[in-house]
Structure formats: structure tokens, C-alpha cells
């Protein structure tokens, strides 16, 4: 009996087990099978388990004493030896000497590793071939009614187990279909033969049913996912843009879409609760003075030029504050319109605040979630970015573009992180750039201040020229036009990563625009105060007119006089409507300017460059005018400030939100078209930051800034006496008090009064501060723990990597080992599987231990792995010893394969 042959036999048998990922010695059946059945796909797992139970029963029933592990081991070895004796003659006959080569020249296999894969099935076949004659003889002896000897029974059981494992793991073997089929049939036949009629009818049907259901479920999930994707508006458009222009440009469109959603909700709120009830149930147009165009304006009220300025009929419509009546309840529903108006105004801000903060929070959560993919950015891009499902040439084009873009993005990131730079020079340049930009900002701030002062002087003068009237606007738009490019030029000094650069640019232009916004607000406030000052006199005039009208002499006293026509009643200037109109105009003109800029600056330029290039003296496309890039910062800020206008104006012009919804809708389509048709991608396509929290932060700031003036006007200015839902009250919020007093039971009123007590509010605010402080510190410590865990994982990976490289070199030296790669593979796979489970707080300890275990030494690993339960016993120690290359791994195999290894062979 030769060592080699025996070793091979053992090896081949062990290999089947090893593939099945059983980590225990073959005798510990129950223990050994558990992990394998767990790992196998579910349906098969159940099959395997059922079989296992049965075999367990058989063993306990059929053989009175199954034998101690040691004994079985010995039996097995003896059997192997017997087989080894038989082997040469049979195998050589069938294999045409192939096997011989395998045995004798293992070196060759090492050099040509592609053969290795083929070897594996060959060995399996071989194994089977040996088993067949044996099993048939066994079967005949069994059917003869003779009592089976113990060892034979054990052997059969073992083989059945092997077959079962083969069936279970068949799916994940890289064999061709035909081979799989024959193997499977063979194995099934074998198992059925020795296990009796196992699971023939019901089990099979159940299994088929289960797989069918699984398939259907997968299909359903897929369809549902597709459906969900289709339900997201403009998803395809945005993906299209993303694939050509990079994620940074797409982030603007995603922001735009989000904004559209928010505005839709606001629109629903305002239309549903204010405008529609007023239109349906309120007093009709022309019934009272505030709902009628005054006599003086009647002539031109329908002219387009007037309507375009939101005067005339539009001014006296439900789009503006002034149209609403101060009746406490309207219609048969007794709808409390003034109350609703106030509450909607409050909830517009409440909802906006809530949604902005919530989306910021969810963005932060999302951005901390991953971290694993950071280590394999390029590998994942290279090997998993192509979607094999793509079956449409247009989609494929987009995919190519998007892969290229994403590669470019990652390359920019990579180059940025590797950049060698003179730190002192960069610092100096950055300080210089900031200084220059602050100078610019101060200068423009002073200019605005100067112009506003001058315009106040002009407004007092008579007959001023067109330029003098519009000086503020002109200066503002000139600043808005020239400052951003100037900032961009200065920012080139700073040499930031484009993503960081974009943030700085956004912040700077934001500061510039803030001046814009606040001059506008100050001018508006002056206007409002002026109107308020005049209000008292107008009020007196109105009273006098009405008084004179009804009490004038020269009319028949007996017949009551017909009421004065509402158009003739003198009325106040209604500052709220004026403010609303101002915002409305601003929004519309802003929209038009944006569209015209796109049309002229992008589209016409692109057309010019494209078509004049044929007859021009230099290359227009590459040279000076070129195509425009998409201006992310300008567009984002435009959107944010526009939204600020909407928030400020929506209280005084409920229709403003409707206009804004239209604006966002058109701008979505228009800008998508403009980008795709006439813009070119940025020179350095860069990845957008994962969360667009910077946009959100700016938006939150603008929301806060726009909340201030509205809150100020509501809280401290008296409403107009003859227009709007709050007319006649001292302050707008009095409507709340009125409702509480009249519509709620008295005790509720008392409770509200109690709650409004400063003695209660101040402690509540203090409590809130404490809570914020507490939560903040908790989140800080949690994030710290998170960072630490991440560091630990990183360290673990490093250790594993270096470990593997050492092992790889060692195994490369070991030339006699044919099984190395596959067995090691399984080890590695399982290792990685263990590690890929996301770290949680509860796991941190285990992770820690593991890191230590891996870090300390090889032996630590060796002792740890058997405990984890799926170390493959793909090879007996015999081969290792024979090959004469003592390795650090040897003891690992010893300890793993249990006592059999330590005990000398008989």
C-alpha cells in the first residue's frame, strides 16, 4: 500500500466534504451538517435536513452501536486502503492514464492552474467510479437479507451523506450543465436507493412549489421596484443628465424636484384651505368695496399692461390678501376663513421648517451608513458598473457615458487627494482670495446702500427719469451678473477641490444676494410705513364720504337711499396687497429673466458656436465662446432665493405658490432641455457630495430670514382697516384670541391663557435647550463610537490583507499542493462573509476580539477558526507531510481535522 494512493483517496473524499463546507470530523454528523444545510439555499436546505434526520434514525435503529468516533475513523481508513489497492487497475482502464499524470506530476498542475478546475470534477468522477461497484455489491448483499456488517453500514451512510452534500452544493459548482445533470441524477439515484423512498411524492412537489413561489416572488419584487422607479417623476430625465454631466449637475435637478414636491404640498394647503373656500362660499365679486375694482381704475382694469403688473382685476381677486372678507364664518359650512387664513400662513412655515430639517437629518443618516465601498471604489466601478440587463442601445449609450463620467469623477477625487502642493503658497493664496472677495462684498454692499439712499431722495422729487427710478434694480442686476464670475476667477487662486470650491462659491454668492434681498425688504418696509401713516386720513375720508352720502339733504327722506355702489367707496391703499403684488412681480420677472438668460446665453450661444463654426476664422467650439457650462451655483442660489420670496410673499399673496408651482414645473422641463441641448459637461466633472445638505442648509437659512419679516409684520403692524381677513382688528393674531373666546369652551380659553404665560414659556424654552444639549452630546458620542468602529474594521482589513499576502507567498512556494487554491478560497470566502456583516454596537466587542485574534498570530487564527465552525477539511495531513514543506498552516489542519490527524495511521 502506497502512501500516495492512500493520501489521494482520503483527499478526494475529504474534498467532497470540504466543498460542502462541513467543519467537523465526518463522524460528528449532526454537528457537521448544520452549517452546511444552513448555508445551502433554503429549499435544498430543508431537503438536506430531512434526509439528515432520516439517516440519523437509520443509524440509531439499524446499527445497535454506531461506534465511537475513533473506531469509525479507523474503519474508514481501512476502507480507503482497500480501495486504494483496487484502484490502479480499474482507474487506469477507464481514465486512459489521465489520473496517472495527475498523481505523478503535480508540479505541472501548479504551472498550469487552469487545469485545476478540471481536475476537481475528474476526481469526483473517479470517486464515484470506485463507489459504484462497491455499492452495487453492497446492495446485492443487503438485498440478500444478510445482516450488514457495522462498518459497511457506516460506509454507506457516509457515502449517502456525501451524495447529499453534493446535491446541496451542486448549484454553486462551476460545471457545465450536462455534467451537473448527470452528477445530480447519479447522486439522487444513489441516495434514493439507500434511503428508501425518500421524499418522493410530497417532498418533490413541495420543493417544486417552493421554487416556483420563490421565482414568482422575485419577479413580483422586480416589477414592483420598476413600478416604484417609474412613479418617481423625471427620474429618467435626471438619470440621463447625470450620466452626461455628472452627479453635481444632477444634484441641482434633484434639488429642483424636491422643491417642486414641497411647493406642491404648500399649494395644496393654501388652495384647499383658503382660496377654494373663499371662491366657493365667500361673497362674490362686486358685493363689497374690497372685492370691487374702484371707479377710477375701471377703465383700464382689463388692459393687458395693467394685468401684467398685477393691477386691475387681478389685484381684486382671491390671489391677494385684500380680497378676503373679515366675516367670521362663511357659507353654510360656517367655515372660519380668517382663522383658516392665519393658521395656513403659520403652517406653511411650520411645514417648510419641518420638511427641510427632516430631509437634512435623513441625508446625514444616509451619508454615515456606508463606508465599506470606500475601499473598493475603482474595483466596484470596473467590475460591477456595467448592467448586464441593458438591452436598449440608447440606454447602453447613457450607461457608457455615465461609467466614463463616474470614472472621471473618481479620478478627480483621487488626483486631488494625491496632489503634492506647497502648503504655504496655497495658504497665502487662499487668504489673499478671501481678502479680495471680502473687499468685493463690502464694495457691493456699500454700492447698494448708496443707491438705496439716492433712490429715497429721488422718490421725493418730481419727474425723475427712467434710469433714476430704476437705478436700484439696475445696479442690483449688474452686481448679480458680474460678481459671480469675478468670484469664480478669484476662487481659481485657491485651488480647492471643485466640490469644496462650489461650496465656497455658493456661500459667497449667497452673501452677495443677501444684500440684494435685504435692500428690497427695507424698501418695502419704508413703503409699508408710509402707507400706514396715510391710512388714518383715508379712514376718516371714507367715513365722511359714507356719512355724507347717507345723510345728505335733497333726497326724499321717506324712501331709503340705495346703498352706495362699492366701486365708488373711497378706500385705503391696503399695504398687504401691495406687498403681495411686489413679491408676485418679483417672482414672475425673476422667472422670465432666468428663461431669457438660458435662451440667449446658452441656446443661442450654442447655436452660434455650432453653426458659425463652418465659416469662422478660428475654432469657435474649442476657442473663445465655446459652449456654456451648466452654472450650478447660480441656479441653486436662484432657486433658493426664489423660494425665500415665495415664503415671504405667500402670506400676502396666496396665489403666489400656484405661480411658483408652474414656474418650477416649466423650469424643470426647460432646463432639462437646455442642459441636454446646449451645455457641455464641466471640464473637471466632480462627484456631488453625498447629501446635498449644503443646499439644504442655505435653504434653511433663507427660510429663517424670510420668516423674520413676515413674523414682524404679523406681530407688530396693524392690518388695513378695509381689506383682508383681519380688517378691523388691532393685530392679525387677534383672530386666534377671538376664536378661542368665542368658539371654545371657557375652560379651554383659560388653559390657553395659562399656557401663554411667560412664566411657563421661559421654562419650556429652557427645557428645550437642555434637551437639545443632551441630544447633541449623545449624538456626538455615538458618532465618535462609530468612527472608532470604522477604524477598527479598517485595521482588521489591513491585518487580513498582510496576512493573506504572507500566506499567498508561502503557498506559492508549496508546489505540490493541488488543492490549495480552492480550499483556501472557501476559507477566505467564509472569512469575508463573516466580516461583511455590518458592525453594530452589540457586535463591537466580538469585532474587537476578532481583531486581536487575527492580529496576534497565526496560531490564534488556527484556534479561532474551528470554533467558528466552517473550516473546510479539504485535505488530510498526509499530503502535507508527504510533500515535505512544513508550513505554518500544518498545525491548523491538524487541529481542524481532529483526532484522526494526530493519531498515527495503522
Amino acid at each position, binding site marked *: 500500500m502506497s502512501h500516495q494512493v492512500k493520501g489521494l483517496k482520503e483527499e478526494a473524499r475529504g474534498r467532497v466534504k470540504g466543498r460542502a463546507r462541513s467543519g467537523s470530523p465526518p463522524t460528528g454528523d449532526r454537528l457537521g451538517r448544520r452549517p452546511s444545510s444552513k448555508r445551502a439555499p433554503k429549499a435544498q436546505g430543508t431537503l438536506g435536513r430531512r434526509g439528515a434526520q432520516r439517516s440519523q434514525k437509520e443509524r440509531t435503529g439499524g446499527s445497535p452501536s454506531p461506534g465511537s468516533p475513533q473506531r469509525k475513523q479507523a474503519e474508514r481508513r481501512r476502507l480507503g486502503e482497500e480501495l486504494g489497492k483496487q484502484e490502479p487497475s480499474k482507474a487506469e482502464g477507464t481514465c486512459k492514464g489521465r489520473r496517472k499524470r495527475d498523481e505523478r506530476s503535480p508540479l505541472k498542475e501548479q504551472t498550469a492552474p487552469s487545469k485545476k478546475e478540471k481536475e476537481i470534477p475528474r476526481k469526483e468522477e473517479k470517486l464515484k467510479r470506485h463507489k459504484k461497484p462497491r455499492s452495487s455489491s453492497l446492495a446485492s448483499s443487503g438485498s440478500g437479507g444478510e445482516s450488514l456488517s457495522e462498518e459497511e453500514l457506516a460506509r454507506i451512510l457516509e457515502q449517502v451523506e456525501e451524495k447529499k452534500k453534493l446535491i446541496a452544493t451542486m448549484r454553486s459548482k462551476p460545471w457545465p450543465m450536462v455534467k451537473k445533470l448527470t452528477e445530480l441524477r447519479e447522486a439522487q439515484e444513489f441516495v434514493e436507493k439507500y434511503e428508501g423512498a425518500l421524499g418522493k411524492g410530497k417532498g418533490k412537489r413541495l420543493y417544486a412549489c417552493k421554487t416556483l413561489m420563490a421565482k414568482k416572488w422575485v419577479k413580483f419584487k422586480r416589477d414592483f421596484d420598476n413600478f416604484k422607479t417609474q412613479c418617481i417623476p423625471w427620474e429618467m430625465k435626471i438619470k440621463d443628465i447625470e450620466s452626461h454631466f455628472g452627479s453635481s449637475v444632477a444634484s441641482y435637478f434633484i434639488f429642483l424636484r424636491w422643491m417642486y414636491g414641497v411647493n406642491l404640498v404648500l399649494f395644496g394647503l393654501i388652495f384647499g384651505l383658503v382660496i377654494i373656500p373663499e371662491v366657493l362660499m365667500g361673497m362674490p365679486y362686486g358685493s363689497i368695496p374690497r372685492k370691487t375694482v374702484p371707479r377710477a381704475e375701471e377703465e383700464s382694469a382689463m388692459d393687458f399692461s395693467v394685468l401684467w403688473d398685477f393691477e386691475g382685476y387681478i389685484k381684486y381677486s382671491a390671489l391677494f390678501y385684500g380680497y378676503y372678507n373679515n366675516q367670521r364664518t362663511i357659507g353654510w359650512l360656517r367655515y372660519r376663513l380668517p382663522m383658516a387664513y392665519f393658521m395656513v400662513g403659520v403652517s406653511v412655515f411650520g411645514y417648510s421648517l419641518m420638511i427641510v430639517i427632516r430631509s437634512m437629518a435623513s441625508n446625514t443618516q444616509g451619508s454615515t451608513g456606508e463606508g465599506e465601498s470606500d475601499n473598493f471604489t475603482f474595483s466596484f466601478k470596473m467590475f460591477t458598473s456595467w448592467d*448586464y440587463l441593458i438591452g436598449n442601445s440608447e440606454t*447602453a449609450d447613457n450607461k457608457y457615458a455615465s461609467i*466614463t463620467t463616474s470614472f472621471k469623477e473618481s479620478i478627480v477625487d483621487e488626483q486631488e487627494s494625491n496632489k503634492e502642493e506647497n502648503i504655504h503658497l496655497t495658504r497665502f493664496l487662499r487668504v489673499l482670495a478671501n481678502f479680495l472677495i471680502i473687499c468685493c462684498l463690502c464694495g457691493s454692499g456699500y454700492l447698494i446702500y448708496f443707491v438705496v439712499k439716492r433712490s429715497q431722495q429721488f422718490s421725493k422729487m418730481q419727474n425723475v427719469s427712467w434710469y433714476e427710478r430704476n437705478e436700484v434694480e439696475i445696479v442690483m442686476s449688474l452686481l448679480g451678473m458680474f460678481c459671480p464670475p469675478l468670484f469664480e476667477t478669484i476662487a481659481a487662486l485657491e485651488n480647492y477641490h471643485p466640490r469644496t470650491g462650489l461650496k465656497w462659491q455658493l456661500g459667497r454668492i449667497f452673501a452677495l444676494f443677501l444684500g440684494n434681498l435685504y435692500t428690497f425688504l427695507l424698501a418695502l418696509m419704508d413703503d409699508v410705513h408710509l402707507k400706514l401713516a396715510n391710512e388714518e386720513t383715508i379712514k376718516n375720508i371714507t367715513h365722511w364720504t359714507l356719512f355724507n352720502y347717507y345723510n345728505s339733504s335733497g333726497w326724499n327722506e321717506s324712501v331709503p337711499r340705495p346703498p352706495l355702489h362699492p366701486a365708488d367707496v373711497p378706500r385705503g391703499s391696503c399695504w398687504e396687497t401691495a406687498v403681495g403684488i411686489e413679491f408676485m412681480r418679483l417672482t414672475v420677472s425673476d422667472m422670465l429673466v432666468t428663461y431669457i438668460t438660458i435662451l440667449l446665453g446658452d441656446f443661442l450661444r450654442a447655436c452660434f458656436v455650432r453653426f458659425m463654426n463652418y465659416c469662422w476664422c478660428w475654432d469657435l467650439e474649442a476657442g473663445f465662446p465655446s459652449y456654456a457650462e451648466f452654472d450650478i451655483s447660480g441656479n441653486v442660489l436662484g432657486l433658493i432665493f426664489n423660494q425665500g420670496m415665495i415664503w415671504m410673499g405667500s402670506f400676502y399673496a396666496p396665489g403666489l405658490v400656484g405661480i411658483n408651482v408652474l414656474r418650477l414645473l416649466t423650469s424643470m422641463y426647460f432646463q432639462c432641455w437646455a442642459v441636454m441641448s446646449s451645455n457641455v459637461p464641466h471640464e473637471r466633472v466632480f462627484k456631488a457630495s453625498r447629501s446635498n445638505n449644503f443646499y439644504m442648509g442655505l435653504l434653511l437659512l433663507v427660510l429663517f430670514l424670510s420668516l423674520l419679516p413676515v413674523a414682524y409684520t404679523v406681530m407688530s403692524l396693524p392690518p388695513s382697516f378695509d381689506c383682508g381677513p383681519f380688517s378691523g382688528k388691532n393685530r392679525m393674531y387677534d383672530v386666534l384670541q377671538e376664536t378661542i373666546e368665542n368658539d371654545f369652551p371657557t375652560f379651554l380659553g383659560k388653559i390657553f391663557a395659562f399656557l401663554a404665560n411667560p412664566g411657563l414659556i421661559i421654562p419650556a424654552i429652557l427645557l428645550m435647550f437642555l434637551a437639545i444639549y443632551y441630544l447633541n452630546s449623545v449624538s456626538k458620542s455615538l458618532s465618535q463610537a462609530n468612527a472608532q468602529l470604522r477604524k477598527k474594521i479598517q485595521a482588521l482589513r489591513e491585518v487580513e490583507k498582510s496576512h*493573506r499576502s504572507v500566506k499567498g507567498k508561502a503557498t506559492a512556494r508549496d508546489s505540490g499542493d493541488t488543492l490549495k487554491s480552492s480550499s483556501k478560497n472557501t476559507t477566505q470566502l467564509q472569512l469575508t462573509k463573516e466580516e461583511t456583516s455590518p458592525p453594530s454596537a452589540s457586535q463591537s466587542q466580538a469585532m474587537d476580539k476578532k481583531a486581536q485574534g487575527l492580529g496576534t498570530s497565526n496560531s490564534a487564527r488556527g484556534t479561532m477558526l474551528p470554533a467558528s465552525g466552517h473550516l473546510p477539511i479539504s485535505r488530510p495531513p498526509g499530503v502535507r507531510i508527504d510533500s515535505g514543506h512544513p508550513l505554518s498552516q500544518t498545525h491548523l489542519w491538524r487541529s481542524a481535522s481532529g483526532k484522526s490527524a494526530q493519531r498515527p495511521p495503522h
Partner: protein
Amino acid sequence: MGSKQTVFTHEQLEAYQDNPFRQRIAQVFSNNGDGHMTLDNFLDMFSVMSEMAPRDLKAYYAFKIYDFNNDDYICAWDLEQTVTKLTRGELSAEEVSLVCEKVLDEADGDHDGRLSLEDFQNMILRAPDFLSTFHIRI
């Protein structure tokens, strides 16, 4: 492959013309690597590319597909081929070499300058969307 369809329409066949690795797929699954497939090869291909195929199996065949010169290692040349196919040659030579360098740097566990099957599997097991992209539906 739950579809009962037995004859492929022209459009359906046309739909698979866009895969940059179509030739590799055909070569990997054909008998002797010449890209001509028998019915059995074809079935093999779809069993591997189906949604139900296990991850390890997919990873094994993905490795073979990306191993352009069939030497059982993904070397720098293979990576260059892959990048060029994926981007239709839009990246410059330096960018391509940078990408290949980075990939080797990330995924090469034993630092031998090429990716073995083991390295590849180790990497691909962590990829979040490997399973979702590496399959074909009919």
C-alpha cells in the same frame, strides 16, 4: 428562465448587442473558447446569468469573463481592456493606467501585481450591486 417563449424575435436578439463583454461571454461559455456555443453552452450561460444563480458561481464566471487572456489571473492588461470597453476609449492613457493601478491597489490581496480568483471573489463579495447587475433576463 420562466418564459415560455421558444423563438427569439429579432429585437430580443438585437437587445444583447450592446454589452461590451458579449464576445467574452460567448468565449467563456463556449466549449473551446472560440465563441461558438452549443445548446448546452447556451443553457449553461443562462443558468449562470439567471437571478437564482448563487453568488460564488457568478463571481467565478465574472472572473473568467474579465480575464481576457485566459491565464487565470486578471492582470493589468486585462484591466485595461475592461476599462477601454467600459468607457469606449473615452479616457486618456494616463487615466486608464491610473484606474488600473488603483484597482490593483485596492483588490490585490497578495501584492503580486495581478488579481487572482481569490482576490476577485474577496472584492466582489463586498460589492453592493454585483448581484443586481450581473444577470440577464429573457
